[in-house]
């Protein structure tokens, strides 16, 4: 396993507040990682920093041995909330935009995922339910052929049937050598997917651990382990 993402001494401050403090992280390829933390822990900020949308003032982020923003962006697919598109935009227009601006966007892959998730390209953004919007975000993010996928709270506000579909699509369309980082605070939903977890607590990476080691050492599921960490019931090693 080779190192895909490396974060060194990353600190991010905004509006006089430290949001992330001295983050150090190393993630290999071919994994599904859960980025866990309570609301406002800095999960989204960390993802945006990795994707190059927020500017790095202190620290270094390396993706596939590259530190230049443009090279990182080529290797990272972030599930954008699609806020940049007008409410009247048709799904087909958004797909056209992705196909136009991302050279690694696979139309074939998108159509497969869209068919599986029952996405209708003729609909407008304003007419989509939260669940369908969530599915569209995932379909667009996964249809790019990149090394690192950052899925920011993909299950947020989504019904259980759609959640199941999203989870199975993540498993189905993930290539062997790509890595997916999924952030969420509803751990139960994504626990079954994960190889490793990264817990963000007190503005920094509290711990990175494999799901296997949690089960072996503590005989706990990911959710129980995460809860215990947040309640202060487990020592940080």
């Amino acid at each position, binding site marked *: 396993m080779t190192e895909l993402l490396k974060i060194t001494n990353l600190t991010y401050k*905004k*509006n*006089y*507040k430290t949001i992330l403090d001295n983050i150090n992280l190393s993630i290999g390829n071919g994994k599904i990682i859960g980025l866990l933390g309570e609301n406002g822990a800095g999960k989204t900020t960390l993802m*945006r920093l990795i*994707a*190059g*949308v*927020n*500017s790095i003032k202190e620290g270094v982020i390396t993706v596939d041995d590259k530190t230049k*923003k*443009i090279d990182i*962006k*080529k290797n990272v697919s*972030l599930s*954008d*909330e*699609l*806020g*940049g*598109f007008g409410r009247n935009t048709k799904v087909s227009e958004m797909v056209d*935009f992705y196909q*136009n*601006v*991302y*050279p690694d966007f696979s139309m074939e892959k998108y159509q497969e995922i869209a068919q599986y998730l029952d996405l209708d390209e003729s609909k407008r953004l304003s007419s989509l339910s939260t669940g369908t919007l969530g599915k569209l975000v995932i379909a667009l993010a996964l249809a790019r052929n990149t090394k690192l996928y950052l899925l920011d709270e993909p299950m947020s506000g989504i019904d259980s049937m759609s959640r199941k579909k999203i989870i199975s699509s993540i498993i189905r369309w993930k290539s062997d050598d790509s890595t997916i980082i999924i952030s969420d605070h509803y751990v139960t939903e994504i626990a079954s997917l994960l190889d490793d977890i990264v817990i963000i607590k007190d503005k920094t990476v509290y711990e990175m651990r494999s799901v296997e080691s949690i089960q072996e050492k503590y005989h706990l599921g990911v959710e129980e382990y995460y809860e215990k960490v947040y309640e202060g019931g487990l020592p940080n090693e």
Partner: protein
Amino acid sequence: MSNINRINKDLFRQRGKLVSIILGFHILAIVLMMLYKKVFKVTDPTSLTGGVLIAIITGIVLLVISVIYVFDSSKYRLIPISSNGLYFSNILSAFFAIIYLLVGEAIIYFGANAIFPNPYDQMMIRDFNVNQYWFQIKLVIAFILGIMLILVGSVVIRLLVSLIGDLLPIKKQTFATVILTLIVIWAVMVPFNVITANTLILLGVQEVTTSFSSIVRMLNMSLFILVAWNVVLTFLNLYLLNRWSEATR
């Protein structure tokens, strides 16, 4: 196709659409006005200059919003393209949109005057139609450079407001952002005015009289200053964009 060409294609299409809508509305407004005059038998001549001015101002305002939006939106900031590439694609597409808007408005103006002639506009066309072609070309260039300066300057102000806002404990409070924007505009305008005025003095503006050659010299100075400011502010924008700026949407 390179990434810059890909984004250029999208921005050119988007801005072309925006200007086409403005031109379409202007034509519609002229047709409706003439219909109204015919139906209600209004015989007073109506100048078309005001409509052209409104359309151009609307176009500039919408283009400024559109240019700033590209730098604010993660829709564009996520695209694998350098900040410089994004900046020049954005500004270049806005530049061509301005040319399209001005040419379109000129066609509408002269076309409408040919179909619905009125004494005010005919007098204006006659006055402008003297044989000073080089002077006229320079005037149009100065006008375009002025619009570009508005665009580039607006980006400077937006990026500075965003940078300073991130350093202050104000988060996304609208009122505080408005106050901050006004302060930044004032802070930018003071050195802008001082430097422009002093440069004009250095270039010999005090010797300018009302003679045509003096006016031409004044126009040349203005062209030089407009180009200089556009270049300086472009460098400032590129620095802010590369080092400090981040998507807010």
